[in-house]
């Protein structure tokens, strides 16, 4: 346990900080809504980080799994089903199935082809949802209410929803960390670095990658179900390809190779978007250069920042001492 605390001090501090936000007095709907959205995107980004950082699979269609989770909620809502014990498993299974089926095909390719084919599958889902007239097509679908649990409207309250999102973000991070350190994760990581070595040992990377994609899809589906509840609205925008790019960017900004970086990246992106959009109408002009600078100067991402600063500090002190 102490070993875990030492190795994972940074992610645990991050989760603790998020848990303390409401305690420290920030309880207004706007701020907590923003944080909830960041944490939900953080769950999706963490699952993508499992693929990118763990298995070397840069999917540009991950928002499709997120969107399928959200659309599962909307579809069931349309049918009058709002019971969480049905809605959440359905959203997770639908997204996992999507990831499994597209993985079967896309994992036959690699590199740029993998990126393009995941993008193509994502676009297929995007156009399919755009033409779903029963769910509002391009205009989207407004939920009648949030998902219930045995008739109780647990998700309506701001605080319960905040802590539910936080708990699931923490669980996702813990689950993905364990996966990467297991035998399964070892094969994934080895196949990312040197697939020929793995094959020469008698292990074909394909089934391992497929399972990883399915798991990541399931987690994105969970995030999608939460997102539908957070916004009480679902439209094709949730699974447009720029959303996939955003998720990928959260992973990179947070630091590929640090799972908790994805949550950090999601928080940074959502909050920066919020702050910058208040400063200037054309904030996207500022946003672009900021992102480029972050990629150039933060090699280890935001998650690598504390180590980088500590290193700089030690260097400065060394120079002073001399």
């Amino acid at each position, binding site marked *: 346990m102490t070993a875990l605390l030492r190795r994972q001090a940074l992610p645990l501090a991050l989760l603790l900080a998020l848990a303390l936000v409401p305690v420290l007095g920030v309880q207004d709907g706007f701020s907590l809504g923003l944080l909830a959205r960041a944490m939900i995107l953080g769950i999706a980004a963490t699952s993508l980080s499992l693929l990118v950082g763990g298995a070397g699979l840069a999917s540009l269609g991950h928002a499709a799994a997120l969107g399928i989770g959200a659309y599962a909620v909307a579809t069931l809502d349309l049918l009058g089903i709002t019971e969480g014990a049905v809605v959440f498993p359905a959203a997770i299974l639908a997204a996992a199935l999507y990831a499994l089926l597209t993985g079967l095909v896309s994992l036959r390719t690699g590199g740029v082809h993998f990126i393009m084919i995941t993008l193509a599958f994502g676009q297929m889902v995007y156009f399919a949802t755009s033409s779903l007239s029963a769910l509002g097509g391009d205009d989207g679908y407004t939920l009648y209410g949030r998902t219930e649990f045995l008739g109780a409207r647990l998700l309506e309250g701001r605080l319960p929803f905040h802590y539910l999102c936080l708990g699931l973000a923490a669980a996702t991070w813990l689950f993905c960390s364990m996966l990467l350190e297991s*035998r399964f994760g070892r094969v994934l990581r080895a196949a990312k670095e040197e697939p020929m070595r793995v094959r020469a040992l008698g292990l074909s990377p394909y089934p391992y990658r497929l399972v990883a994609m399915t798991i990541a899809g399931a987690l994105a589906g969970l995030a999608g179900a939460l997102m539908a509840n957070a916004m009480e609205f679902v439209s094709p925008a949730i699974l447009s390809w720029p959303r996939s790019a955003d998720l990928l960017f959260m992973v990179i900004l947070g630091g590929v190779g640090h799972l908790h970086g994805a949550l950090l990246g999601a928080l940074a992106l959502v909050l920066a978007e919020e702050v910058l959009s208040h400063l200037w109408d054309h904030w996207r002009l500022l946003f672009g250069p900021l992102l480029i600078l972050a990629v150039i100067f933060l090699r280890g991402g935001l998650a690598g920042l504390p180590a980088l600063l500590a290193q700089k500090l030690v260097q400065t002190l060394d120079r002073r001492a001399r």
Partner: protein
Amino acid sequence: MAPLLELRGLSKSFGALAVTRGVSLAVAPGEIHAVIGPNGAGKTTLIHQISGTLRPDAGQVLFRGQDVTALDLPARARLGLARSFQITCIIPGFTALANVALAVQARSGSSFRFFRRAEAEEALNAPARAALERVGLGHRAGAVAGTLSHGEKRQLELAIALASAPSLLLLDEPLAGAGPEETARLVALLRALRGDYAILLVEHDMQAVFALADRISVLVYGQLIASGTPEEIRAHPEVRAAYLGEDELA
């Protein structure tokens, strides 16, 4: 004794270039069989066809009496065919121990285990440590593989091959790029493995080959021109003419 590995009339062409032409040879259990030949003779292509990275155009590969011609690299590895690579093929970001433990993991039980920390599994680490000790790399178990010296990486590759408990070791130029001291250490190591493992060795270092091999096959332009004991190969006129300089054999 039935051969462990048998090649029957193996042929492979890349376009108009015939790289392997009707190669037949057999490796008996426990013997070190070296394949030598000048650059461009098709040695690595031959290794690729034996390990399953390349599919031959014609001919058969038999391993432990079973026709494995249609099997790919992972399937042949599971049957007990371990290979090392001419260009070092390790996981640079893993520790030396984790590299070898992965090989142990590949042959023992399922890798579809999702929750226990693999690094903490003594059942994987103990055999991995033993393999590292055997190649003389025990003291470097905790080092990140990418930071090892070239010679140490070659040793690590051998440890990985040994840890997968193979019945045949396929070594593609294990001495490539090693300095004189490292070479001496690796040759001693390979000699110590004789008898425990059958080894098919492709190597440029003639001194090492003649010191180690029980039998030698000579490949020239994709064809085997001779096969026999080191003495026979040394005396073979065609081999001398085609490949070996007079003084190299002195």
